[in-house]
């Protein structure tokens, strides 16, 4: 699972109000090279929850990869280096093993072989 997907996921348990962002507990992760596409990045940028992305990138030890505050979209158009770092954080970090933890209920969704198991129990639907 890439951080792009993690950025979109929120907790689906019935009655949960603040199910976002899911806390990422990565036990094993890899970096894979992905083709750089500036158009896609600029298109997806407004939809990204920046604090969540920065937070999950930090959990891998990438403390300086992204700025704390969401950059202006005009900066993204001019700053190629920033765009590359954004690309790296969003698409090239793959979580292989670990878990996603709901911030409200503490329910843990395990990640096996890169696939998060988001199946809910019957009493959570």
């Amino acid at each position, binding site marked *: *699972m*890439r951080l*792009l*997907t993690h*950025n*979109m*996921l*929120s*907790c*689906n348990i019935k009655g949960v109000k603040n*199910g*976002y962002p899911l806390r990422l507990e990565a036990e094993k992760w890899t970096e894979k090279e992905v083709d750089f*596409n500036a*158009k*896609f990045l600029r*298109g*997806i940028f407004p*939809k990204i*929850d920046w604090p969540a992305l920065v937070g999950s990138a930090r959990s891998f030890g990438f403390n300086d990869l992204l700025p704390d505050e969401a950059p202006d979209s005009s900066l993204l158009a001019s700053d190629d280096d920033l765009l590359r770092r954004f690309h790296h954080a969003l*698409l090239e970090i793959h979580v292989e093993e670990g878990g996603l933890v709901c911030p409200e209920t503490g329910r843990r969704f395990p990640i096996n*072989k*890169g*696939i*998060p*198991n*988001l*199946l*809910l129990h*019957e009493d959570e*639907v």
Partner: protein
Amino acid sequence: MPRPELQAPPEIFYNDTEARKYTTSSRIIEIQAKISERALELLNIPNDGVPRLLLDIGCGSGLSGETLSENEHHWIGFDISQSMLDVALEREVEGDLLLADMGQGLGLRPGVIDGAISISAIQWLCYADKSSHEPMARLKAFFGSLYRCLTRGARAVLQLYSENMNQSEMIMKAAMRAGFAGGVVVDFPHSTKARKAYLVLTCGPSSTQTSLPKGKGEDGETCSDDDESDDDDEQTVGIYDRHRPAKRSKITKKGKGKAWVLKKKNQMRNKGYTVPPDTKYTARKRKNHF
């Protein structure tokens, strides 16, 4: 063979052996690729070369996702069967995979997805496989969450094999209740095999964008006969027996005539077969060379 939906719930039915079929059967792969190409076409994404973030609901082994990747889109795949997802991992698909039940709703943030496709999956929602399952509630959860996660004006194209009219009506009703505009596009409506129904849903207020595209093969347009003739096991072999009395053919000396041939050709065309065009030579008798 009975429909897979009637045999077992999806997470049980698509076990290792069934999932394996999806990677080894060239016929399934070809049909899936064709359907997903058509679904992508119906999604009507502006042709500006910008890759989008799409959903593949019921992605299975990632056959449909491959089509999305070929068109350079990023995608997130949902499936309930671990075996199918394992096969997808083996195939090294490019999208991200999630093990989830669409009937429990898609846990996604609102307004982030640019489009969704689903190939032969939605009909599973109509079956109650556990005592806690309630088809109407599951459909509502699915369409509600799908509506929320799509951006305004985004489309969802869901190809489905519904068992009967009631099912498609139920699905359609649930989609409309969730707020979607749209309808069903049927490709090759006259053919039994090539017939495919797509639910084309648009998120947000109806506009000119929401007008439904036309289905293929509605006005006599023919589909390629590849997927008609590829069922090898259904072919029969004729046996020649010289002692068998010759069948009294109904054909009179003059033949059945041009009108009959034209009528038959038209019937075949309506079924979606490739039929040679009608010309002045149609139904004309060959010359007697001897």
